[in-house]
């Protein structure tokens, strides 16, 4: 079994988001980077499935050299090898093309990703990769079990779940509670240092969108506090200002 997990290198969920250069560049000052939270779920489940079926688990990131510590963390969590495709990931279609070209060469049985990245929140790379590879795609996946060459999957839909069966190979965008996040232990961290991390150059340069400027949302006005003995005042505000009653 050959499993690929695609991970993003993104600002920690508590990061303050700021821009520089006249609002054209993300300000990396003081930002802690992590494996995308949804990617972390995909990775955790992939480690379990690899342990169950044997084979090899590869993690991949399309990014510049600064993302390597994040890939090493994925190795410490349990991936067997890492691949970094050396490019700035500016557009989902571009990233998907890189991933698909790599996957075509290796022929993975299963490609797991996060349901969405937490920087651009597109939720699109997995579907694009699947279409480029002519494979089925499914997202957001909350449960994934393997029985031979068939995956049994639960996918979240509005107000519930849908259960599916898919034959390998396929692409899935994952979210909780597919598995519990794994925290690297000391042995994992030590062994990650000697696991292979391969850097590959670009294979195709198609871009469909580009970001030209950033903007912060307007600051929120101060909260209007209402006395807990006077809930009637809140009802009035909901009627006259928010107009929901």
């Amino acid at each position, binding site marked *: 079994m050959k499993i690929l997990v695609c991970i993003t290198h993104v600002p920690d969920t508590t990061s303050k988001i700021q821009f520089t250069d006249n609002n054209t560049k993300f300000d990396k000052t003081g930002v802690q980077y992590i494996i995308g939270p949804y990617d972390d779920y995909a990775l955790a489940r992939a480690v379990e499935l690899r342990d169950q079926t044997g084979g090899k688990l590869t993690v991949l990131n399309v990014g510049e050299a600064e993302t390597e510590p994040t890939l090493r963390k994925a190795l410490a969590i349990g991936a067997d090898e890492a691949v970094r495709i050396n490019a700035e990931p500016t557009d989902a279609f571009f990233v998907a093309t890189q991933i698909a070209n790599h996957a075509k060469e290796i022929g993975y049985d299963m490609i797991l990703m996060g349901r969405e990245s937490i920087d651009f929140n597109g939720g699109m790379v997995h579907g694009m990769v699947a279409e480029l590879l002519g494979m089925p795609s499914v997202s957001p996946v909350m449960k994934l079990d393997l029985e031979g060459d068939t995956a049994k999957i639960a996918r979240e839909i509005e107000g519930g779940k849908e259960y599916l069966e898919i034959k390998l190979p396929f692409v899935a965008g994952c979210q909780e509670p597919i598995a519990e996040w794994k925290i690297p232990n000391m042995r994992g961290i030590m062994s990650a240092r000697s696991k292979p991390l391969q850097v590959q150059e670009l294979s195709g340069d198609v871009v469909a969108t580009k970001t030209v400027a950033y903007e912060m949302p307007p600051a929120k006005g101060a909260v209007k506090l209402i006395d807990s003995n006077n809930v009637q005042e809140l009802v009035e505000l*909901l009627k006259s200002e928010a107009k929901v009653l």
Partner: protein
Amino acid sequence: MSIIVYIEHIEGAIKKTSLEAASYASALAEQQGVDAKGVVLGTVSEDQLASVGTAGLSTVYHVNDDQLNAGVIQAHAEAVAQAFEKAGADTLILAKSSLGDAVAARLAVKLDAGYISNVVALPSTSGTYTVKRSIYTGKAFAESEITKTNKILGVKKNAVPLKTDGAPASVEALEVNLSEGAFAAKITSIDKANDEIPLPEADIVVSGGRGMKGPENWNLIEDLAKALGAATGCSKPVSDSGWRPHHEHVGQTGVKVAPTLYVAVGISGAIQHLAGVNASKYIVVINKDPEAPFFKAADYGIVGDAFEVLPKLTEAIKAVK
């Protein structure tokens, strides 16, 4: 050229978020002087189909194939691609949803289109084609340019006002050819809570956090929700502890909501929770701790014990409804 909208329905009832996407499309069509059409897949009544016209669409293509009632991602993508061609469209509009996102990503490749998601406003089309989208889970916006001829825009809730005064749309049956592979992902069953307002669709949401102490107290949340006609949500620890089902969990790793009114009860307002609610128009926070960070993100706040405030508030709302 024309614009086409991928319209979703829940067991035959057109989704409100899809009507919002249709409103967006008709505003864009007006801006560009073109026509906006829709495509609906699966079993839906003539009345429901024509009702899409209220949001400004001239025509709906109806693919009346019951195999498409369920959200088979690949099959939906193939059908919508054929409707796109039939309409001679260069722009596809859809509402963000778990199905819509998955279908649109495949369509971006099929149609060789530039796809932007989380769109919050109409594009600017003089010169380059740029559109504003929400990024970093609502913490910022980006102005992004689409460099392809074909375009897909995934529209966030509240991007444009809902249009309700259009004339009924004319309905055209559309036959599509679906490949064998389109049904490779087999849906074996669906497990769905009935008779509740789906959280991502709701106009008002009442959420409870760990401050509610336990699942046995959720009747207080439900009573307020009922009085307001709201859906119910919760914070992550609440669904992690099994007090509430997972699909109610709001936030960065859960559902992102954008209702007109979000009421947070006994939720501290951690940044990961706020990430799921910061697109709400109005936020009410009820918390016994005046220092709770949620008050900084709120429009209206009550510092008090939820167990005392909720029954009073529910009664006061019932009285005016």
